[in-house]
Every structure is written in C-alpha cells, then in structure tokens.
C-alpha cells in the first residue's frame, strides 16, 4: 500500500547509522584455481550427492541410455537425445509430474560447489528441473567456472527471469540428521561431460 511505502521509507530516512559504511570491493578469490576444473567439479558434485556418468567417445549418448533403468516417460530438452514425451508451447508445469527422467543441458557448472545452473532457456518448462523423479544432465566441460564469484560474473543473471543452481539431488536431513534424497524434488541427479 502506497501509504506504507512512504511510511517505511520515511522511517528509514529518519535513522542515521553512525560511522562511514562504504561499499566493500569483493575480490574473485580465484588465484588458486586449478587447471583441471573437471576433477574439482566431479569431487564437489559427489560431495553433494550427485553422480558422474562415464563418457563414451564412440557413442556419446550411450551413458544416458544406460542411466535410464526405470520404466516411465522420459522428457528431453536437448537435441542430442530423443525422449518419448514432447514439450510444446502448450505444456503446463503440472504436465511434467508423471515424468520419470528428464534429460537437460546445464548452462554452466561451478567447480567449487558441484553446482549446475539452469534457466528457463534450458528447462523449457521450469518444472522439468524438479517434478521428474530423476535428472540426467549434460555439461560442457568448457562451461565450468572455478567458484561462485566467477559464476556470478556470467551473463545468465541479466538474461533469465528464473535461474537455479542445482547441487546434487533434492535432499533433507530434517529427521534426526538422516539424509534422504528425494525430499520433494528429484531423487537422483547424474551428470555427463558432453561438449
């Protein structure tokens, strides 16, 4: 309500914090970045409960096919792999609910935390990141940045309306600290390095 807007801003303007509070400059903290970000990414991903799929040079999509072991609809948001459910401009967010596997490509990865970035551009319908039971993700190793400071220098943040870092599958430890995958979102997350 507009009256409250003015009241809140007015109350803030009537306060004056003592001392100077300049805006600090934040370094990138990336001097120690290793040359091989793939290894660090994999280590961090596994710490967060994600799995790496082994690449197959002769048949690049074989690891994806092999990772699909359960019956149920597969939706693909990547041209490299054919799913059996199509996303169209009419697909509603809830239509993704019966999906067993979604195959996605990450915009980029973060080695420090094993995170994968998805925006609406990669997800097509935002719920493909969360409503399927399992995710299989293609990641171009050239699109791995070292740490979160580097990650927030990327252009996606000014392009997308929605962007998410997924770091492993959905998880909870709310009952006696016992970690359970698949609290509400995906039960497993597998990553394949694929340029």
């Amino acid at each position, binding site marked *: 309500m507009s009256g*409250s807007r003015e009241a809140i*801003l007015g109350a*803030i303007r009537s306060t004056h914090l003592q001392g100077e509070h300049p805006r600090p400059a934040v370094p990138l903290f990336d001097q120690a970045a290793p040359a091989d970000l793939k290894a660090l990414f994999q280590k961090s991903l596994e710490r967060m409960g994600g799995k790496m799929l082994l690449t197959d040079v002769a048949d690049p999509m074989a690891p994806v096919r092999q990772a699909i072991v359960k019956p149920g609809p597969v939706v693909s948001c990547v041209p490299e792999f054919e799913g059996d459910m199509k996303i169209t401009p009419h697909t509603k967010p809830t239509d993704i609910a019966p999906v067993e596997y979604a195959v996605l490509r990450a915009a980029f990865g973060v080695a420090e935390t094993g995170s994968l970035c998805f925006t609406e551009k990669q997800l097509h319908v935002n*719920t493909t990141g969360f409503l399927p039971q399992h995710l299989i993700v293609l990641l171009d190793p050239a699109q791995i940045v070292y740490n979160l400071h580097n990650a927030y220098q990327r252009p996606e943040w000014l392009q997308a309306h929605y962007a998410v870092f997924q770091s492993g599958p959905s998880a909870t430890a*709310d009952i*006696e*600290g016992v970690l359970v995958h*698949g609290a509400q*979102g995906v039960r497993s997350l597998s990553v394949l390095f694929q340029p």
Partner: protein
Amino acid sequence: MTAELHEELTDPHGEQLDHGAASSRPLKSRISEPQPRGAKIRGNRPVDQSEAANRFMAATEHEAMHDARLWDLRQKRDKEMHGIEEWEELRNLASGIKEHTLSKLDYYLELFEKNATANGIKVHWAKDGAEHNAIVLEILRSRGVERLIKSKSMLTEECGFREFMAHNNVEVIETDLGERIQQLDDEAPSHVVVPAVHKLRTDVASVFAKTIGSDPDNADAHYLTECQREATRPLILSAQAGMTGGNFVVAETGTFVVCTNESNADLSANTPPLHIASIGIEKLIPGLNELPVFIRLLSRSALGSPITQYTSHFRGPREGGEMHVVLVDNGRSERLGMEKFWPGLKCIRCGACMNTCPVFRRSGGLSYGATYAGPIGLIIDPTFNVHKYRNLPYSSTMNGSCTNVCPVKINIHEQIADWRKTLAGEGEISPVKKVMMKAAGEVLASPVVYRASLPLGRSALRHLPHFMLYNKLNTWGRKRDIPETPKQTFNEWYRRNRKSQGEGENS
C-alpha cells in the same frame, strides 16, 4: 501407506549418507519418550524460558539427541571453514556489505522496486504483519485461490500467517519437511534452519500416523520422508498459488534469491501460476558481486555443507505467470534506529549461533516462546515486545561463541549484555532479579562489605546451591557441576602464604 522404498532412498552399502545436510555420524535415538512442549504462553506476561528448558532437559533422550545433532552441525561448520582460506575475509566482507546496505536502505529498496517492476514483478509494501497478511489475502481472493503451497519463511512466522489464512479459509501447505512436521503437529518451528530438530523420529512417526496415515510403528526416517513426499505431491500439483520467502534481494538486478535443500521453493514458485514472495526489508544487498559472499557463507555456517542443494534466483514472472513481492517492515525500520541494536538486522538466519549455544542446545528452541530462539532471538525478540521477552537476554552464558561463529559478525553477546542494561533501565526486570541485583550492587560497591561477604559466599556455594546458583538468573547452570569452592579466599591465602613468606625473608 506402503513401506516399500525407492532404492535411491537406501544406501546400497547399508550405511547412512553423510554429505550435505546430514549428520557426520549416525545419531539414532534409542528410546521413545513423550515430546516436551515449548514455553507456556500467557498473553503478554513475560515468557519463562527456564521453566520450559527444565522440562526439555528432563526429557533426557530429547535433550541428548538435540545437543548431539546441533553440536555436530557446529563441528561440520568448522570443517568447512577450515577448507576456505579466505573465510575470515568473507565474514568481514559480509558484515561490511550488510552495514553499507543498511546505511542506504531507502536507496536500495527503491532501486530494487524499480528494477523488479521493470521486469514484471508487482512490488507491495507492508508496515507490519497484519498488513502483510491482508495484502496476500487480497491477492489470493481476487484470483479465487483456495490452496497455497509455501516454502519455509521465518517472516511469515512473525506475521502469524498460517493462523490468519486458516481463519480466512485458505489452505496453507508447508512444503519443507521440517516445517510440514511442525505444521501438522500445530507447533512453531524450533530452529530457523531445522524446524523439527527438537523432535525424535518417534515423535515424527506419531504425528504422521495421526495426520497423513503412516504406520505408527515405523519410525524410519527414510520411510517417514517418503510418506510426506507422497502425501504432499498431489497438494503441490493442485495448488493455485505458491509462496516463498527470500534469503537475499539483489537491488541492482531486481532479483530475489531463495535457498533450500529440498527444491520445495522451486516447486512452490514454478508449479502454480501465481508466486508471492514475502521478504523482510533487511534482506537487501547491492549487486551480483556481493551475492556470492553470502551464498558461500550461508550453508557452510548453517549445516556445514558447501551450498544448499538448490539456490534459486527469481527476477521476473515466467511466461503466462504472475509474481508478487511483499516487502515487510514489521519493526525493522524502528530497529534500524536503535543505536545499540541495529546490527541485528545484518542476520542472514543461518542458525549457527543456535547450534553453538550451550543454552539453546540443552533447552530446545520452543522454550524461548518467541519466533526467534537462541542467541539471535535474545537480541531480536525484545525489539518486538520488550515486556514479554524481558527474561530472554538472561538465557545466555555470555561465552561469546555466538559472536565468533556469526558469518556477518553481529556482536551478539555484547548486545545481550546491552539488553540486560537496557531492560534494567526501563524497569523491565523481574522482582527476583531486582532484589538480587540490589543486594549484589550494595556488596560490590564497598570493598569492606565485599571482603566480609566472601566467606559467607563460599559457605553459600557449599550449603545453599539451590538458592544462589540454580535460580532464574542462572538457567544454564542446571546440570552443570559448579567447580569445587576453595576453602579460603585469595585474600586469606595471600595473608597466610605470601605475607608469612615475606616475614620469613625479613627475619
């Protein structure tokens, strides 16, 4: 509900998973025991934290599990800290960024409003909880919403949001597991990050058996989590609106950021056509350069994991969707004007101060009888109601550990001391404390009276422990052994030893 589990839920080696938010070692409770309940709320009367803490400590299995789980989180936090060379620099930066933003809060709020509005977000302003609830209800009513799914938000707890919506016939479904447990048990969250940490698995089994039809004899955490997933999913799919909080708000891009481990914020925001985010005005930060400082500190401080499983950034509605942000003051602008207490606004709600606090770990978050428990609660709660929460600043050992672990360097223990002074100055002090402090003041004011009192004090320590030691001033002293009292005072010892030695040398 079937006891069959998806195989992902059980570790193939039969061992407990130990990454992410997990405890670093299995902490299974051994026995079932009735759950101790929180502080008794009697209108505006001062909350008696020590009374509720006594009942929590009497439930020994609950106390032991709570203490072990939270101390383990503290140790996991330390391990993460040691893995990052620039940790202290990050804390300094986080503190400096928050102080800078708070010093120009009006500017950054308007900047956020401008950028968010340009991206299609409708921004609302609420001066208090009641206005927040009214704004949200109006949005929901005008769109015919009967069911709202939401992720965890301490702000909506402040606003009494769920109770308000229940009275107005809107069904609110919490989607964070811990928060859902608490909602189904009609209890407030006891901790800002792990809302049901005061409950044993058997408590959860009994709540779920009564409310979502799980097997009352199955207290396996995997089974209980799966039951909740299966029960909540149809509600997520049929809700007409979703609600989230906001951990960080980036003014320069008009983005708000939500951190969860379960992806429940993403589900709440992306599944229904309408997304409403309730955000406290202190959550602002300037830009994207500052954001990673906080993302790197938050989950490491909270759970000892490098990052939350999901870090979600909302900058505008999706195609065909609708997005609202309600910026809520609810006492924050007033706190900003409090010379000693404004730094509490730097808080990012990580809960590290709770995990490290010996009082919190042994008394449970519900014993505080307030939205915010633990050390941060002691300094925030009295700003909401100085009379009702006047006892809370005494629920501290003043060991300073909270200040040492705080990722944004809030001087928590100093503020606790300042609250004690302020409360005494405002006459907000219980009659028992008043009598004891007056007596102590008279004794400490005179060296002669002080010396004369010491042998009495020693005697009192030995013979009157319940009067002098285990009173309301000293809640944390319960179940701790007081060090054995010396047989003589230092003054007596000095006179006997040094003086006689000195006399010996002279002679």
